[in-house]
């Protein structure tokens, strides 16, 4: 510090006439470096502040702002529910409701009184030992039970156990249960579709939760909305083509049939002739989608769509239709089917009875194998293969259903004469029940075929003409004669309605060979004949009772189904016959 210059007003030592501050005694000689040091230190301190300010403001602003926000901003989850599944009339088939998952911090829970833990075990419907086993864990997060319904959650919260908390999630409910489950399918605990339509339409049904940013005040009220972070997407509802009432009717018919005929399984499908909608699809045995703890593969199997089988005699109308369509035969063309068997390249093909001389109509009515083979032999193999292909046999189906089977039709060039003969009555190729039902559309609809749909159809689809309307009408007449006292499906007669159809019995393949005792019985039919409304196909797998053929197990099941379905759909009766005459020894079709 430099010496002070003399200032006016400075105190003056009176005696020596000299300023006090200038007294040489007081003059302190300080080294120059000290003042410079102080100046430097001060400057350095300011510089440090400046740098810090620049650092905070410039370099780490984002980090700091984020930290600040995290102290007052909150992200709120915006829930999104999975879409519902509805039937064609709007009845709920699947719906998600909020439930809670109960989780625990094991260490904290184990410190609470034992009576509270046993109360918790009771509420969660778990044996206390199991609960304790779950809690005996080093982890800090353990799910105790998932998808617990709200009333139970309220009880659990009343217990006020430390370390128990809940997490929001959704549970899928299926009010129609076992009746509808093969169609609707189910979701897993993560709300993901696993089977049926739940799986097929996972993307549209699924909801995507969103989130938004808010500022919360001390009391937890939202003070300011900072806008949407991520928009939530609610799952879209799905309206199926299925009719709950018809589905129930189909299910009961199949269930009764399986029990009555001591069968291994049964299946039925009902199609709308005009729109191609699947109105009902029933399987038995079945399972309850709301409780799948004891689920077996046998119950899960969808025999209508994912199983294929040899169609047996149900294919004969197609063979005959192609013959009629190409002008090779007429309904009254006569075939001599004596003596009830024939040989094709050394292999014998038999009928159950010797039908003698038959017309084409008779071949269908009595289900003569020989007749069908004789008609097929007039048709080149390639034409037959093209017919099968046009009907969708052996083609990957596009129904929009997971796991739909394509069936199997080998290329026509590889068919040996005996194989071709077998195909004429439905052996050596395989189709699904749904494919079979769809192919009957050509008879129900004046010769064209339309795509099938599992979703409600708003507009009638445009068909692809396969055979002429005339041929379709001729085959329809033959089919109606099958469902008469003289035909193989006399048990398919329905009081009040005219029904047409064709029975079929296929031998099951057991250990690689056709079994004489294990059959599958079919019936595929159209009704009412005056103005076809439904195509119904029924399958009864391995009946072990006294009755085993398609005509005696599948036909009466189909009759029951037709009668109730037509009545339920308010279709006016087209027949005045109200008393059904079933012959004492009804005709059985050949296999």
């Amino acid at each position: 510090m430099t010496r002070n210059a003399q200032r006016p007003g400075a105190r003056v030592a009176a005696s020596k006439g000299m300023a006090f501050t200038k007294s040489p005694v007081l003059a302190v000689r300080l080294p120059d470096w000290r003042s410079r040091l102080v100046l430097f230190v001060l400057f350095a301190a300011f510089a440090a502040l400046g740098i810090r300010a620049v650092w905070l403001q410039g370099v780490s602003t984002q980090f700091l702002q984020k930290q600040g926000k995290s102290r007052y901003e909150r992200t709120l989850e915006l829930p999104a529910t999975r879409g519902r599944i509805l039937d064609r009339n709007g009845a709920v088939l699947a719906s998600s409701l909020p439930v809670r998952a109960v989780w625990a911090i094991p260490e904290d829970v184990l410190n609470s009184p034992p009576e509270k833990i046993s109360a918790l075990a009771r509420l969660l419907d778990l044996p206390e030992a199991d609960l304790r086993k779950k809690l005996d864990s080093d982890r800090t997060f353990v799910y105790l039970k998932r998808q617990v319904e709200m009333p139970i959650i309220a009880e659990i919260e009343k217990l006020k156990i430390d370390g128990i908390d809940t997490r929001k999630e959704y549970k899928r409910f299926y009010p129609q249960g076992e009746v509808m489950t093969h169609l609707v399918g189910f979701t897993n605990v993560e709300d993901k579709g696993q089977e049926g339509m739940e799986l097929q339409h996972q993307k549209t049904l699924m909801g995507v939760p969103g989130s938004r940013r808010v500022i919360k005040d001390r009391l937890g009220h939202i003070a300011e909305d900072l806008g949407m972070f991520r928009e939530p997407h609610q799952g879209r509802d799905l309206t199926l083509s299925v009719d709950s009432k018809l589905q129930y009717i189909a299910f009961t018919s199949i269930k009764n049939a399986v029990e009555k005929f001591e069968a291994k399984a049964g299946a039925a499908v009902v199609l709308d002739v005009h729109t191609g909608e699947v109105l009902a699809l029933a399987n038995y045995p079945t399972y309850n989608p709301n409780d799948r703890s004891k689920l077996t593969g046998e119950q899960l199997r969808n025999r209508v769509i994912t199983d294929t089988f040899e169609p047996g005699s149900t294919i004969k109308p197609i063979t005959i239709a192609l013959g009629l369509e190409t002008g090779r035969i007429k309904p009254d063309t006569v075939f001599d089917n004596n003596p009830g068997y024939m040989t094709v390249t050394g292999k014998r093909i038999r009928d159950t009875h010797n039908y003698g001389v038959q017309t084409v109509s008779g071949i269908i009515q009595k289900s003569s194998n020989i007749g069908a083979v004789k008609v097929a032999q007039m048709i080149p193999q390639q034409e037959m293969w093209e017919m099968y292909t046009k009907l969708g046999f052996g083609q990957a189906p596009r129904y929009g259903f997971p796991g739909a089977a394509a069936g199997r039709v080998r290329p026509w060039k590889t068919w040996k004469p005996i194989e071709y003969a077998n195909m004429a009555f439905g052996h050596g190729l395989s189709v699904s029940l749904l494919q079979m039902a769809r192919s009957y559309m050509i008879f129900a609809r004046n010769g064209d075929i339309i795509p099938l749909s599992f979703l409600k159809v708003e507009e009638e689809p445009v068909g692809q003409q396969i055979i002429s309307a005339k041929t379709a009408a001729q085959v329809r007449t033959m089919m109606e004669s099958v469902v008469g006292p003289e035909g193989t499906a006399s048990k398919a007669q329905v009081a009040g309605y005219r029904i047409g159809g064709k029975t079929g019995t296929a031998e099951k393949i057991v250990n690689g060979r056709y079994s004489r005792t294990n059959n599958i019985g079919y019936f595929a039919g159209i009704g009412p004949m005056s103005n076809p409304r439904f195509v119904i196909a029924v399958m009864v797998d391995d009946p072990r009772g006294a009755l085993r053929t398609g005509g005696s197990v599948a036909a009466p099941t189909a009759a029951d189904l037709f009668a109730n379905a037509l009545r339920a759909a308010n279709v006016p009766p087209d027949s005045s016959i109200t008393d059904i005459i079933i012959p004492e020894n009804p005709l059985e079709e050949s296999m």
Partner: protein
Amino acid sequence: MSFKVNALLAALLVGCALSVVNARYQARHLLIELERLQQHARQLDIDWAQLQLDQSTLGKNERIEEIARTNLEMSRLTPARTQYLTDGGQ
């Protein structure tokens, strides 16, 4: 003159400031109210879904048939005992 203008502007400023405070207060209240109502709407949605589910469960064909058969002693309609009336009457 200039003093008067200043005083007027100062008064206006204070007025504006107060109205801002009031607006913020109102906004916050409305927001809380909105939040509460949205919560309510969500709850109603859940209730609605629950009720539809209940309707579907209670309206199950199986249950209706069971009740009709056992409690009400009804039986299925057959064409044999049905009189059909057709339009135009014959």
